[in-house]
Every structure is written in C-alpha cells, then in structure tokens.
C-alpha cells in the first residue's frame, strides 16, 4: 500500500538529505542568474523565489501532523529540517531585500518596516521564526520540556499567517496564488483548532 511504502521510505531516508536537497534550488537560481534566465530584474526574481519557497516550506511543515492523522503518513522526523530550511529561505529572502533591493538604505528600510503594513507583517513573521529556529535542537527540547517546547512552537501558525498576509498584501491586484496560500494556512489552522477543542472535550468528558 502506498502509505506503507511512503512510511518505509521515510524511515530509511535521513533528514540530512533534505538539507542537501534544499541547496539545489538556490544553486539553480545562481545558475539561472549566470545564463540570464532570470530576466530583466533578477533581484526581484531571486527575492520573490526565496520568499515563496520559505512560505512553501512553512506550509509543508504545517501539513506534517495532519498528514499523519488523516492519511497515516508519518514524516515527523523531517519536521525540524523542513522548519529550518523554511527559516533559511526566509532569512535569505530578507537578506536579498536588504542588500540587493534596498541596498542598505537604512532610512528607507526602517521607514518601510515601520510604515508599510505588508513589510511590517513580513518582518513580524521573520521575528516570530527566530525563537523557533533557535530552539530547533534536542538541547532546547530538554531544557524547555516537551510540553513547553510544543507550546512555543505553536508560534509557527502565527508565522505562517504573517507570511501569507505579507504575500497577499504585496501584489497590486487580487491574484489567485497568494489567495490559495492564504486559504491553505487558514484551513490548517482551523484543523488544528478543531482537533485541540476535540481533545479538550475528550479529556474533560465524564467517564461513563
């Protein structure tokens, strides 16, 4: 059965391969840059690609638990790698914005962060990802305790929300792609809320 085969592969493949695989699209960007395939404004293409990949990895990370509960596919051991790769892409996205797009014009950069709602939201999303990335290691789980660590990492949902709002807000008209990402994140959040409400009910239900 497909699910069993997927689970079989997932057990055999080391999460480290995921880190290696994550470098490939970045190399692909560099290659395209050299061949001129990124077009007239390569900075925007690089910036937008990295941002989109970051968002895609965040959404992928949020799908891991529902995949297990709804389809029985267990990719839990990849979740840390997915999250850290998302953080790496988002960090590169921010770096390209600062260095190549705004070219370190700090006056304008601070103005944008404080006054432009979509950039404010984007920066908030990045800030929310920082504690998540910093605690994505075994030592932090020990220090915070499993429950505390899990509570902290619910911030992922907020970061995802910030990411999709940032995306939807930056385009000049209503476009399908950002709206689809937005709906996907809302759907994943609702699913989570539903599950935790149900498990709370189950815990507090009187024993018959």
């Amino acid at each position, binding site marked *: 059965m497909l699910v069993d085969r997927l689970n079989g592969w997932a057990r055999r493949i080391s999460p480290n391969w995921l880190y290696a695989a994550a470098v490939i699209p970045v190399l692909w960007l560099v290659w395209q840059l050299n061949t001129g395939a990124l077009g*007239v404004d390569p*900075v925007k293409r690089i910036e937008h690609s990295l941002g989109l990949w970051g968002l895609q990895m965040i959404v992928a990370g949020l799908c891991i638990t529902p995949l297990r509960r709804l389809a029985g596919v267990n990719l839990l051991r990849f979740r840390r790698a997915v999250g850290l790769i998302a953080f790496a892409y988002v960090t590169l996205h921010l770096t390209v914005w600062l260095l*190549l797009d705004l070219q370190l*014009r700090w006056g*304008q950069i601070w103005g944008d962060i404080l*006054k*432009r709602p979509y950039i404010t939201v984007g920066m908030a999303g990045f800030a929310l990802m920082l504690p998540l990335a910093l605690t994505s290691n075994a030592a932090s789980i020990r220090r915070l305790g499993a429950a505390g660590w899990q509570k902290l990492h619910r911030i992922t949902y907020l970061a995802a929300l910030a990411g999709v709002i940032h995306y939807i807000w930056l385009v000049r*008209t209503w476009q399908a792609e950002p709206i689809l990402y937005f709906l996907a994140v809302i759907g994943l959040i609702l699913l989570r809320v539903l599950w935790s409400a149900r498990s709370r009910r189950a815990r507090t239900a009187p024993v018959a």
Partner: protein
Amino acid sequence: RASIEASPSAFSTDAKPNTFEEITTYNNYYEFGTDKSDPSRNAGGLTTAPWSIRIDGLVDRPGEYGLEDLMQGVALEERIYRFRCVEGWSMVIPWIGFELSQILNRVGVQSGARYVAFETLLRPEEMPGVARPSIEWPYREGLRLDEAMNPLTIMATGLYGEPMPNQNGAPIRLVVPWKYGFKSIKSIVRISLTDQMPPTSWNMLQPNEYGFYANVNPEVDHPRWSQASERRIGSSIFAPRVDTVKFNGYGEQVAGLYAGQDLAKDY
C-alpha cells in the same frame, strides 16, 4: 535595425537606454497576464492592423479614425525617455512617436473640454489575461487637457526604430514621462474629450493608492511602499538604486502645470 525614420529630439535624455530585449520582456500589460513576462509570451496573437481610434466627446470632428489617416503627415521623433514604474523600478526607453497635441489639434478640441480620456483595446479572444477580472476592463486612463497638450506627452508607435512590439502597446500608445508608467496607456482604441475628470483603472481599483495625477514624486509615498528611490533595472543583480527625482526629472517642463496644487492631495 532602425526601419522607421525619426528625427532626434531635444527632449531626449542622454542616459543609456535599456536593451530592446529588456524593454520587450518586462511589461505590465494585465490584459496578457499579471506576470511581467506574460505579455511577451501572450501578446503575439494580437491583431494590430487594421487599427482605428474612435475620437469623440467635446471635439469638432468626432469619428472613427484609421491609424494611417491619423499618422498622415505626422513627423515622427525619437524620444529617449526615462520610464518610472509606480512599483519602484525604472528603465530608459527610446520611443518613436509624435506629440499627442497633433492629434488633438487635428480633431479640434472644443472650448468646454478639460480632460482627455483613453481606452485600451478589449478583445478577450486575443487577450488571455482579461478572463480574470483583476482590473475592470477595458483599461482606462486620463489626462488633464494641459497635460495632454504638453510637448513631452507623446503617442508612441515604435521603439528602437522598430514598430511598437505588441507587448509594449502596439500599434499606438501614450507616453507621459513625468508620470508613473500606468498612466501611459497601451493599444489605444478610444480618445474622448470631456469636461469631467474621467475614471481611471488603477484609481477605480485602489483610490487611496493610485491617484488621477500619478506624477512621479519621491515626497509622496505609495501607501504600501516608499517612492523615495528606484532601481534602474536591466539584467544585473547590481542594478543601482537611485534617488527618485520629482516629475521623473521633467520638472522644468511640467512643474508649472501644477502651480498652486497640493501634490500630496492631488497624488
């Protein structure tokens, strides 16, 4: 190249123009899709001949004018203009065209006219982007009559000595170099002289973000981004970011048009 005869103009900038390739593969022309590479991919099937423009409203000689008739006896010039997009990037483009005032004078503007309204072709079978209602079609733009009569305002029919490529607004488009690019409406099929400020597409969509005037102005930010600087784009990741100049550097010719106006209010 250079298949079109055009005389040089004193209004041309001596800045280095972007390449033909750059100018024709990076376009905002939502009728062909919202990605900047969509128009060059999707505009090939646009029929641009025969072409006519309906000129109506407050004019002495309204009617449906064939493009050849309108161009008869018109002296084409090369105008190398800076082009500043509202999104914060800019290019330098060697347009071929003639002053809009030549058309307006031919059809006879009546004394009550104060504005000029323009419309882009709407032909869904050749324009895949209009299937999506991202903008209320047809695309509309407008100018105040004095802006339209300014010698900088041209109707462009070519670039780099070539007939206008479809993705750049073939066969005839407006170019108003001191305003954000979206004012320079493409593939024009209608020009109306009116006494009222005409509705314009981006203003209809987001009135607080895109005003009727849309003059390039580093002091007036777009609500979602700063207009203080722009990137001179062209295939390099080191495209320099430069300070944006008021009226895109054409203040000497046009600042007087707005004497007494608060440009933060009339954005």
